[in-house]
């Protein structure tokens, strides 16, 4: 038997005396990703007319085709659209999912359920692909939601109940970034108070919103600062207005111009910075490593798999002999198979018996027929025998008579010549 040495748990550090060249490894990895392209999926939750589509347009500097939704939808629906964007050599497949009819119904009890269902469906699709036998994960178009932009109406008071409930049910499934929409309706002082109120309400109710990561030194400071600015107060606009000697995106009012990209006016730049330039990769990773894993774990446990069995023996989906569920299923199937076999045997025996009975019946009939025919044949034979006998007797009688006649003839011929001739003629005549 060959001896297999395990790697040492603490591999030793080596110093190299020259340039090897594997520092290009991240570049190799990145090149690969560039070749494949990136996926990013945003879910926008907010009531109709709060400015979701406009904000997305502004964020990505493009006019995505979006029709205005009506306010009269009977239930909340989700509408997803995928776009391919390209910037220098990076190709991004952006999917924007909008909630249609959110907050419009009179009875809003079922409002958040479709959203949760949609998110779960994306996880489910990925899980199905992962569990397939023949799978193509590296080519898979990832449709899982990476970030949820939650649009809070700028009431200036506090979170609405619907918002609270929705965010609470979404926080374990997706990264939530809360935004204050249409922030140009709130004054600066009111805004500060509003933000603090919102954050404290979220904290009190235990809603886990997405925290920008502070573990990397290069981004820790800026992320930490941004964390304090949540929720971002945003204004979206694709219209350009002349300010000074530049054309900027802004909203023009009689009393002034709200510039979208002016940090004094709103937090749009911060949002763009955080969402796209700094943390897009982290959002994707969190979705995969945290939210998806949680979903997967729950789903698999629900389906009856477990990592540890009843006697604390480690189980595995792979080891058939050890795993209880597999054994149980095997027994079940084996039993069922036996049963089905028995059934088939019974059925077969039954059919054979029936067929045999039919065949026997036919046999009997044929036999009867044969007997009957035989009998008839016998009778005919006997009749014919009878006839033959009669015929034979007659022929014997005839030959006897003929013999006696011949004898008489010869006698009378010798006794008298002509009288015999006369007699003979007469006899001949009689005979004829």
């Amino acid at each position, binding site marked *: *038997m*060959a*001896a*297999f*040495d395990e790697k040492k748990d603490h*591999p*030793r*550090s*080596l*110093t*190299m005396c*020259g340039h*090897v060249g*594997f520092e290009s*490894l*991240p570049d*190799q*990895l990145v090149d690969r*990703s560039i070749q494949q392209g990136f996926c990013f999926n945003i879910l926008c939750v907010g009531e109709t007319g709060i400015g979701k589509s406009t904000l997305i347009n502004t*964020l990505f*500097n493009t006019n995505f085709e979006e029709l205005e939704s009506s306010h009269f939808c009977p*239930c909340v629906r*989700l509408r*997803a*659209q995928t*776009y*391919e*964007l390209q*910037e220098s050599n990076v190709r991004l497949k952006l*999917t924007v999912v909008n909630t249609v009819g959110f907050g419009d119904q009179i009875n809003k009890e079922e409002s958040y359920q479709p959203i949760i*269902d*949609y998110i779960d*469906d994306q996880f*489910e*699709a990925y899980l*199905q692909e992962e569990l397939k*036998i*023949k799978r193509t994960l590296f080519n898979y178009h990832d*449709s899982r939601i990476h970030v949820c932009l939650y649009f809070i109406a700028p009431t200036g008071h506090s979170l609405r109940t619907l918002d609270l409930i929705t965010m609470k049910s979404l926080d374990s499934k997706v990264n939530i970034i809360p935004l204050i929409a249409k922030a140009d309706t709130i004054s600066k002082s009111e805004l500060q108070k509003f933000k603090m109120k919102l954050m404290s309400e979220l904290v009190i109710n235990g809603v886990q919103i997405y925290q920008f990561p502070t573990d*990397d030194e290069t981004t820790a400071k800026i992320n930490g600062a941004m964390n304090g600015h949540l929720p971002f107060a945003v204004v979206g606009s694709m219209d350009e207005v002349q300010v000074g000697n530049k054309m900027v995106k802004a909203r023009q009012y009689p009393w002034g111009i709200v510039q979208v990209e002016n940090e004094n006016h709103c937090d749009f730049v911060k949002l763009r910075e955080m969402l*796209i330039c*700094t943390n*897009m*990769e982290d959002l994707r990773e969190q979705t995969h*490593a945290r939210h998806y*894993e949680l979903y*997967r774990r729950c789903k698999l446990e*629900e*389906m009856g798999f477990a990592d540890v069995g009843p006697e604390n023996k480690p189980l*595995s989906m*792979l080891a058939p002999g050890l795993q209880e569920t*597999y054994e149980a*299923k095997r027994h079940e199937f084996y039993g*069922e*198979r036996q049963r089905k*076999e028995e059934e088939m045997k019974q059925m077969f025996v039954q059919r054979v018996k029936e067929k045999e009975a039919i065949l026997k019946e036919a*046999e009997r009939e044929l*036999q009867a027929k*044969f007997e009957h025919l035989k009998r008839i*044949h016998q009778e005919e034979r006997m009749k014919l025998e009878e006839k033959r006998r009669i015929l034979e007797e007659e022929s014997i009688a005839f030959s006897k008579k003929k013999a006696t006649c011949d004898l008489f003839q010869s006698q009378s011929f010798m006794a008298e010549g002509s009288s015999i001739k006369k007699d003979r003629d007469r006899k001949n005549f009689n005979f004829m």
Partner: protein
Amino acid sequence: MSKGLPEARTDTAMSELVPEPRPKPAVPMKPVSINSNLLGYIGIDTIIEQMRKKTMKTGFDFNIMVVGQSGLGKSTLVNTLFKSQVSRKASSWNREEKIPKTVEIKAIGHVIEEGGVKMKLTVIDTPGFGDQINNENCWEPIEKYINEQYEKFLKEEVNIARKKRIPDTRVHCCLYFISPTGHSLRPLDLEFMKHLSKVVNIIPVIAKADTMTLEEKSEFKQRVRKELEVNGIEFYPQKEFDEDLEDKTENDKIRESMPFAVVGSDKEYQVNGKRVLGRKTPWGIIEVENLHHCEFALLRDFVIRTHLQDLKEVTHNIHYETYRAKRLNDNGGLPPNKKLCASLKRSGEGFILKCWEQVSHRQPFLSSDPPTN
């Protein structure tokens, strides 16, 4: 949800997974293409930087296996590749020490860092390969080891609560050392590569290439390539995995110059005022990194500087997936109903056949002579 692994579905549209009462999520299959109409810089391309930073933090794993008869310079070559004492050379090997009776597998891990990139390098040595008198099936322990690593990874992947980063011990690359006979491949070489080219990326190298002249080298290489092709052995980079034309042309060039004829050395000498790695002989100094002398630099660039990530990806996306698919299939990954039906069908047919045989040997149809007429 029924218990058991979900059935292997063919590609179903997203909407089919959602039961009817729920509103169907409309994910259109064809994305709308809006390109280069971006009215300004957004910053999407910063994702490259973000990704790079993340990967540098997590570090990389790389597992390389060296296979070849002893004395072909495997350890020296690995040391030269990674410019450090990665393997302890067997030159100090005492003759009194036992020659391993079967092939042993020795895996030693190291951590090396360059330019901020941390790499966990594992070198898997196979002493005893091809050294016995009877070398039949000496590739089996190697194949077993490779499959065991796949199994380990699969087990981790299949766990309910799984680790954030599954430790990757799978063999990404196998350097196979060909003896520089100048004639052709040996039967052992062919057998080994035939068996293992399906489970791992094999890169054949011609060892101790300083024993051949330039003409001998090119002839030998051509012959080796031809033999490999005739025997249907696909070494890395495999033709079937070329994704597009660009890949194909690039890889074709590499395939044309493989197997690389290499010389390894970890000693430095002074040549033309520079210190270079080389081998000193009475007739001159063979510079390891000089492309006129040997192809070591090509091998190094190929394996480390350009195709390292690709080696890992082919291992993960193709070899590992093949192993996984086979493993799950053998285990009844098939949906249970189909299996039951199949077995029933088989057993049912057998039974019917048996019974029919019995019936046909019964008494003839009529029990008396047929009537003559």
